[in-house]
């Protein structure tokens, strides 16, 4: 038996999810590897169609991978049946983007939050009820709200209910798919504060899936950037923002608008559109839009390789780009764009 402390709560290796299509297959996720240690928050960032949500759905087994492995807390769940998966569902829970469609409108808040406890047989009715009051307080809601139904709550309150439900069984891993994207700015801030507080107190691992770079910078310890089904770069959050290596990461970070009218900045404007995952370009998937692409990029797919840590003892980072040197020296897409 390996040491509990070192077992990652999530270990994804070579994950593939190809969807059959009349003319071939849609390669939504094409070889993604990702590890989340206990209590670690990993951000998975990418634009629409990058496959980030499909990774999340495969991890919680709402979807079945067509290749690779998903190991949750030491158990391989890649091809478990729904029945076999059921007892493992208390180890991993999900929070979705839209709380109004992920809460049953005909159940009370108390029933919604207590449901996982009931299904896993973790609490008697009385215990569950007490636990719901406690969970509501922990997510910053008054226990009086327990007897209301979702439509009587605001969007931010509903998202707090989703979080309370997800945490009711104390999962080792929380998968949060765009949990703040449907919320207003001020509400977004309070939900991010809440997630940060809960994560600190309870120490669950978290896969935080989002397109919001500011939110991921705030919450994540480590960030993986996806483009067209593959991870192109992975690094500790601070380093990724300070020194993005992959030309796509550089373009993505430069495009995010900064809430300061005096912030002069140079955007890297990408030409073209995201290519179709039905027929991804050969070589590096990003070469069709990369201002720096060379002949090698157009023919040979770059592997994700480990770069030396920025400082001694620091966490290693990974990048999939031919143009980044062995020493981690990266080209500047800004200069070429």
């Amino acid at each position, binding site marked *: 038996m390996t040491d509990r402390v070192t077992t990652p709560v999530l270990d994804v290796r070579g994950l593939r999810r190809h969807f059959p299509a009349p003319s071939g297959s849609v390669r939504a996720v094409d070889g993604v590897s990702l590890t989340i240690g206990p209590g670690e928050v990993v951000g998975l960032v990418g*634009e*629409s169609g990058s496959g980030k949500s499909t990774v999340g759905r495969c991890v919680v087994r709402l979807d079945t991978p067509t290749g690779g492995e998903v190991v949750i807390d030491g158990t391989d769940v890649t091809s478990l049946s729904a029945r076999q998966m059921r007892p493992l569902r208390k180890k991993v829970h999900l929070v979705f983007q839209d709380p109004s469609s992920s809460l049953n409108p005909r159940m009370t808040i108390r029933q919604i939050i207590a449901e996982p406890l009931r299904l896993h047989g973790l609490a008697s009715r009385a215990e569950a009820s007490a636990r719901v009051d406690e969970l509501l307080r922990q997510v910053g809601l008054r226990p009086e709200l327990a007897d209301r139904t979702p439509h009587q709550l*605001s*969007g931010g309150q509903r998202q707090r209910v989703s979080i309370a439900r997800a945490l009711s069984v104390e999962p080792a891993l929380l998968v949060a798919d765009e949990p703040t994207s449907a919320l*207003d*700015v*001020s*509400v*977004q*801030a*309070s939900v*991010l*504060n809440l997630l*940060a507080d809960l994560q600190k107190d309870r120490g669950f691992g978290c896969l935080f899936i989002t*397109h*919001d*770079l*500011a*939110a991921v*910078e*705030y*919450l994540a310890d480590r960030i993986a950037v996806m483009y067209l089904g593959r991870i192109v770069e992975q690094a500790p*959050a*601070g380093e990724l*923002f300070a020194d993005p290596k992959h030309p796509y990461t550089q*373009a*993505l970070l430069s*495009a*995010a*608008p*900064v*809430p*300061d*009218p*005096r*912030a002069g900045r140079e*955007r890297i*404007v*990408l030409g073209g*559109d*995201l290519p179709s995952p039905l027929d991804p370009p050969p070589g590096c998937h990003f070469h069709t839009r990369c201002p720096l692409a060379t002949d090698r990029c157009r023919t040979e797919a770059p592997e994700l390789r480990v770069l030396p840590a920025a400082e001694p003892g620091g966490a290693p980072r990974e990048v999939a780009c031919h143009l980044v040197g062995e020493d981690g020296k990266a080209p500047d897409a800004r200069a070429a764009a």
Partner: protein
Amino acid sequence: MTTTAPSPATGAARTGPVLSVRDLTVSFAGPDDTVHAVDGVSYDLAPGEVLAVVGESGCGKSVTSMAVMGLLPPTARIGGSITLDGQELVGADERTWRPLRGRRLSMIFQEPMTSLNPVLTVGRQIAEVLIRHQKLSKKEARARAVELLDLVGIPAPDRRVDEYPHQLSGGMRQRVMIAIAVACDPAVLIADEPTTALDVTVQAGILDVLKNLRDRLGTAIVLITHDLGVVAETADRVLVMYAGRPVEQAPVDELFAAPSHPYTRGLLGAVLRPGSRTKDGRARLNEIPGLVPDLRSRPDACTFAPRCAFAEDDCRGGRPQLRTLAGGHRIACHHPVTPQPEEEVSA
């Protein structure tokens, strides 16, 4: 309507505002009560100016714009005044509206897929406006459609003009929407969350197109958004709304540098900024406590008072009127956070 329309200005001076909104109110009567969606909004829009209207869901920013476009349902009760080039639009009949909408006033929406007709080529959809308003022939309209697609930065426009919306990406569809909106060179373009449904790398391109149009055609733009990053990069002036009422209006630099209304400060404080997390951990994000008020009541008080850290008795007992501070800054607050010397308030 509730106000008397000012006499239409003959040959409105080019230096004056192209669009003026005065004390606009929009309410929707229900069986038991009335929702006051917009309550006392005023602004002027100069030619070539980008005014951002900012606020959270339900603050009335979209309803204000629908009123300006004359697109509210008949159940809406509209008061106040909206003038375009001196012509009163509140209470105008459909005959008055028809030559204005799509020609002098245009609008683009958040979701380009639902705004475009899926069974017509984009070329036909652009040509429709030109044939109707500018009486171009089909052939002329098609040629102009190609030019417009080029103007909004669509590559290979002579090929794209014959494609259907589903063949285009989200960003390209929004560019087509913009091409339709500016086809007749409108004086005012209303962009309601034009980049909210788009990815950041695509968003940057769309904002560039809008700024480019403003520079080349002198189009005045009302940009409705909840994204303060977009505001900072695109707007000249900002109107902040809360619960249907205007709370602050200022040039963009001024607003970000010296937000005076406690709500504006709260909103700016809640925005995540680069560097929100350092080696020492996460800085706590500012929240605005409490909830948005119910729009069915229309209190004679500051509607933000229940959530405001600076609220005093007068805030709960009297509705603050918009007043002008230095530097074109307007604010509706009894206790502004960074008080500035009051100027002569010009009507």
